[in-house]
């Protein structure tokens, strides 16, 4: 229960001593790369959409980066219990917004994901993800204290309506991501394997159900499985990355950004691959992997099941989102409409990611605690 006595016990010094520096530095590097790439893709996208200001997206991106840094650092200073309380607040807010969204949200590209708020479009699902993970992990951890309450079922009651709202938008990509992270939280919390099997079967059945009930899911998956048919975006991304080769065609020389509708968001990886080449992309991927794996490993060292499960799931979700986005860009996965964390343009995505990493950092800070596993 005691922390080592250090000369400086102010809150900032305390935080800096305990927080994972590698993850913070990695996140900063990612944000800087995102800023650089927004200079590549932003002006083209602004021109395509018809904004007068060529640097519309660049300036906004810069604003989001500043906001993301503040939110990430601030939330990483939270204690475990404050992290949970903040998560509850965000969850309630985002959940209500998502519910309202079904009624008043404006449709972007076939989905109702956005809500307009004073010139900004907010995508509450980006915020609900980390909040739900933290809450679910905390609820599952309560099994050790009060064994009479069926915590698993309670958690599931939290999870099911959230996923339901996501599917109603419909946002299948986010649903898949959230479900995977939720399962990881369940798994790390000591979920019996029979539950895992049940979830697996349930997941497959849900997937099939989705495939047959949503037109655009079916279309995307079919266009992925039959590359000859309408997979224009994937072909373009593939061609761009191939054109970039190892070293890229050079900054500003890329062309995919002129040919795709979302060069600054979903296909930013292809823009990077074309202009800066595979080696740069690999570097980017390594930073993602280092952040995610470092976070998961830090979480795995926590003895308390709540921060362990929550931290693991949060960093897993961060890593998986990057993997899915890159997987789409290199043609391994069907197009999902998912951003590349901290790189793609988008305020909600950026702030949501900042929250994910900030909460993850807060929950994996070094603490002295009893470790049953360590002898």
């Amino acid at each position, binding site marked *: 229960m005691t922390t080592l006595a250090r000369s400086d016990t102010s809150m900032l010094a305390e935080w800096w001593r305990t927080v994972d520096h590698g993850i913070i530095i990695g996140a900063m590097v990612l944000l800087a790369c995102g800023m650089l790439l927004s200079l590549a893709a932003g002006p083209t996208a602004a021109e395509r959409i018809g904004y007068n200001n060529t640097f519309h997206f660049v300036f906004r991106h810069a604003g989001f980066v500043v906001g993301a840094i503040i939110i990430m650092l601030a939330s990483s200073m939270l204690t475990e219990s404050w992290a949970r309380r903040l998560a509850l607040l965000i969850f309630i807010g985002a959940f209500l917004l998502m519910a309202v969204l079904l009624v008043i949200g404006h449709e972007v590209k076939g989905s109702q994901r956005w809500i307009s708020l004073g010139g900004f479009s907010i995508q509450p699902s980006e915020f609900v993800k980390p909040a739900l993970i933290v809450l679910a992990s905390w609820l599952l951890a309560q099994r050790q204290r009060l064994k009479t309450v069926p915590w698993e079922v309670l958690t599931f009651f939290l999870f099911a309506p959230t996923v339901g709202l996501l599917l109603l938008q419909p946002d299948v990509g986010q649903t898949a991501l959230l479900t995977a992270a939720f399962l990881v939280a369940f798994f790390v919390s*000591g979920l019996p394997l029979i539950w895992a099997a049940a979830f697996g079967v349930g997941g497959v059945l849900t997937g099939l159900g989705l495939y047959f009930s949503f037109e655009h899911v079916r279309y995307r998956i079919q266009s992925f499985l039959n590359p000859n048919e309408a997979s224009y975006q994937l072909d373009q991304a593939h*061609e761009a990355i191939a054109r970039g080769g190892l070293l890229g065609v050079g900054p500003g020389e890329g062309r*995919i950004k002129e040919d795709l509708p979302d060069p600054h968001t979903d296909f930013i990886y292809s823009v990077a691959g074309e202009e800066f080449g595979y080696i740069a*992309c690999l570097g980017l991927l390594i930073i993602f992997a280092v952040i995610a794996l470092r976070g*998961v490993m830090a979480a795995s060292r926590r003895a308390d*099941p709540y921060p362990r499960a929550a931290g693991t799931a949060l960093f*897993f979700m961060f*890593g998986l989102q990057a*993997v899915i986005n890159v997987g789409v860009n*290199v043609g391994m996965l069907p197009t999902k409409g998912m951003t590349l964390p901290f790189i793609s343009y988008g305020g909600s995505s950026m702030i949501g990611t900042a929250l994910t990493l900030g909460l993850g950092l807060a929950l994996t800070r070094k603490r002295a605690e009893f470790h049953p596993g360590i002898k």
Partner: protein
Amino acid sequence: MSQNLFEAERTSPLRARLVAAGLCFAFCAVGLQGAVVALAGSDSATTRVASSSRDAVSTRRAEIVDRNGERLATSVSVYSLYADPSAIWNAHDVAAGLVSILPDLDYDTILARLSDEGRRFVWLKRGLTPNQRQAVFDLGFEALGFREETRRFYPQRSLASHILGFTDVDGNGISGIEYALNDRLTSTDEPLQLTIDVGIQYSLEVELSAAAVRTNAEGGAGVVLDARTGEVLAMASWPMYDANRPQDADDVARFNRASSGVYELGSVFKPFTIAAGIDLGEVTLRETFDVRNPIRIGSDAIHDDHPLHNARSADLTTILAQSSNIGTVQVAGRIGPERQVRFLESLGLFDASPVELGSAAPLLPEYWSEVTYATASFGHGIAVSPMSFASAFATFANDGEYLAPTILMEGDPLAAPREPRRVMSAPTAQVVVEMMRTAVTEGTGRNADVVGYRVAGKTGTAEKPAAGGYDDDRNVTSFSAVFPADDPNYVVLIVLDEPTNEAGQAISAAFASAPAVGNVIERIAPILDVMPNFEDIRPSGPPVRMIADRRSL
């Protein structure tokens, strides 16, 4: 229970590490796939722009070579210049820079295009050479870009241009072989070898041009065939054009008269009628005909232009050598309409020539009457392409067997199998060749003779059809020859459209086409390894031109 829970908790760090391992695996998978995609290579890695729809890859066409591998058509890389007007700071600077390098650009036109900021892409000029491209590149304007294209180039310029045809700016064949075999030329890089011989083609074109200019003709056509194989050794049309600049020529020059034009060729048809008569046994060589009086068919009368020397008893050789219409119609009468038509049809004269670059269908009488049968026997009322006629005529030089003409070398996958079709017996063919040899030594074809090369041939002077009949002021003259007469191997045909003398009067084949054919043979016989034979030159015979006469000029 408590113990179980504790056990479960003990395994959790392991579970978190399993999650880390899974994530690590996923990162490796996308990283590897990224490498596969990045290193797969791009279809168009060399060009700056490659992906969007405006950059349809222009087709690379196979070369066309002659029978000796001489290059007739090839593809070279050129660069097309475009600009992105929205990326231009000062359109005046860019326009001025471009005009200084490409003087044929119009400053105001270019300026207008560059100033159109609503557009992201405008073409400025196609077909820049590598040097021009570098010069434009060195201007350093970011908004300018190049697209590599292939352009067709014809190193022999106007030579064989009617055979080769040309392509449009997008590289699609739109005429000649380029059009007819477009799929073949775009589907493989293997050069397409034609049966054309550049030397023979050149000889034919030079002599055809000389004759056409000398006689002030409207047009002309020439064909040289290898009668034993059906191969087209040369084919020419006058006036000519430069295949590299087809847009500078008019339709008259681009028109291939040899295969796409049809003409009533006149008396060059007479050998067919005579051959049919002999082959069917209806006339004999010893037989004589009285050709003094015109033949009346209904209200029409068939005359001879000039009375024959021994018109009371002219044999077949005389009828052919002196080109008697009256005599030929009498032979046709013996054959009968049905067999006469069938004979012409068996020579391929009723169909478009099967030559691979395409050919015009003949114009046949709308209905056959007694008069049309009679006039068809001496080549009137039936208009065929020179190509069609030459391959029919080649039957005489191929021992009576018809061969479809071809411009593709034997063994080419697109070439039809060479299956000869017997039309007349070999002796008949030889006899008619001998008669045509007499026509050259003693008859209307004297101007075609070349000492030593035993030319056999037939003149044809046809009045051009005009409203209500024929126009005796305008002729189509032809001379069709086989050589060497003692072992015929090659066919040379030259057709001139409206040749005139210096006074502007229509002239006959004997003076227009026959000398041109002689000149062609004189040039090409050495190329074809035909050995000259001077033994049968009779000192007292009619004067023939000596090769030495011309060489000494």
